[in-house]
């Protein structure tokens, strides 16, 4: 946790970022925008969205660290942003995991085994002999 009342830490001014840095960051953002547009036209199947998200995350970190001065902010401000992002991932992750398993009745292995139940998404037994 951040120290009690950090009169010691200086405000943002001492570390104010110079204009050339801002321009460099702006240039990087422009390049990344171009890259994401170009990469969208290459057919990578399901990886297209993954690549797009990676580029978006890098652009986001650039904006957050330089434009929003998080680079010189206190740990608490970083903790707030990170906990927000984690909470969103939590909501998305478990909701989509529920969606993925809705029709396949997968079980946590040790529970299924306790009961001698064949986890249903295991491969189907060979074609049953004709009754």
């Amino acid at each position, binding site marked *: *946790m951040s120290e009690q009342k950090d009169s010691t830490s200086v405000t943002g001014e001492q570390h104010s970022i110079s204009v050339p840095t801002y321009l460099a960051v702006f240039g990087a953002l422009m390049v990344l925008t171009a890259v994401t547009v170009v990469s969208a036209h290459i057919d990578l199947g399901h990886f297209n969205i993954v690549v797009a998200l990676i580029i978006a995350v890098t652009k986001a970190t650039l904006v957050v660290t330089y434009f929003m001065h998080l680079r010189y902010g206190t740990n608490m401000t970083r903790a707030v942003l990170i906990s927000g992002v984690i909470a969103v991932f939590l909501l998305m992750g478990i909701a989509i995991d529920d969606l993925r398993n809705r029709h396949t009745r997968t079980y946590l292995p040790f529970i299924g085994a306790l009961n001698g139940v064949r986890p249903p998404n295991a491969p189907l037994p060979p074609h049953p002999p004709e009754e």
Partner: protein
Amino acid sequence: MTETVVHEAHDASVNYLNADYGVRSWLFTKDHKRIGLLYLASITVFFALGGLAALMIRLDLLTPAGDLVRDDTYNKLFTMHGVVMIFLFLIPSIPAVIGNFVLPLMIGARDLAFPRLNLASWYIFNIGALFAAWALLAGGIDTGWTFYTPYSTMSSNSNVLSGAFGAFITGFASILTGVNFIATIHRMRAPGLTWNRLPLFVWAMYATSIIFILGTPVIAITLLLMMIERAFHIGLFDPALGGDPILFQHLFWFYSHPAVYIMILPSMGVISEIITCFSRNRIFGYSFIAASSIAIALIGFLVWGHHMFVSGQSANASLIFSLLSFFVAIPSAIKVFNWTATLYRGSVRLQAPMVYALGFIGLFTIGGLTGLFLSTLATDVHLHDTYFVVAHFHYIMVGGALMGYLGAIHFWWPKMTGRLYNETLAKIAAIIVFVGFNLTFFPQFVLGFLGMPRRYHVYPDEFQVLNVFSTAGASILGIGYLLPVLYLIWSMRYGPKAEANHWGAVGLEWQTSSPPPTENFDHTPVVTSEPYDYREPVEVKKVA
């Protein structure tokens, strides 16, 4: 002990109440203490509205055929009870009234970090609350406080849009309170007040504010999407157009389960304060109680799926949510054990706040343990959506949060108003509330196991006996809640004057006069010792 001795305030007769007069001084105040009292007034009105709906429901359930009201009126009554009690009373109750008033005093600050934001929060709360109250009274909502789709979007023809919009607005009031509290706790503590000297009520407010910040926006979006779906029939949650009603439940419960921790965590903070003061004993396991407040807030975000075990959610997700729900029960158990241990070798005085606190421990224990029934998969299949669930969350919210709130009002009343209430009358009221509560909700556990579903206007005849007990209990409970309103208002005018530290407590808020000056402290106190240090009895210094 704080070094600085409270000496003669420059003019003891001037305090935050008589510093300024007139409606403008109250409606445009930036003083956290006055905003706390403004919130107290607003939520007491809504508590009365919700309580009235509860009494109507209990009266209607006296007979299996439900003769008091028609079907749809009953549905509107229990929705009004749910929406008003949760969004308009319980969520703001302790954080906005007690938290606003006491938090800056406890950490030695002159006010919250953003006073204007605090006043804006009260106005936003009232605008949203009036929207919701208008929707409930002018035609009502019949979807239940959960607004489940596709009923709320496709087939309900009640004021769902305006009611949901009201709840949507009140959400932002909670967010502003959360921002205010975390910023204040982090940046504006008195010198010497390190993290492990913070009063446990401040820890509880910190944990509650985490949930305010991370949870409330999700319910805002959920209600917004539901309103869009209802207005334009776009198929967001409409299965015919490719939507999935279970997604609504995921989004709704992602906020609404942490919301029940918003309601109980502040009461836990209050109980830690009251127990230590009235048993003149240092808190048992300070760091464990503080850590379990934060643990409850964080793990609370992982467990929302135990509301959806039978909703068509995948069995795999149900197993995961059941396992995580047991993890969140452990910190609550730790707290109860620590409170009980605090009484050991103390000097216990059974005054009104202490009666509420001990009542809290008893009822919260039963509420918490019955929660285990509902996070266990097998029993939840049988007990879900029955009166067992109704009894469980009333034991937590009414037995826990409301008892904690009443205890807090009684404990800090001398500090808030400078007046004393009638002690014996207060103890009688507390006991009536305890007895009435148990008679109302314990029979509902049995009703739930028998299988009586919740939200039922008519029920089979064999459930009538237990329902009659429950209604009898509800009337006793109603009287129990009326008494404090009467004698507290009476005490404002005629109650004897209270000294600065009426209970001889150790918190910073008791080092200033009652009621405190607008600036809270004559000069910022310096904290040197660890919290709840009741080593030598605090002789009460006479102020003026």
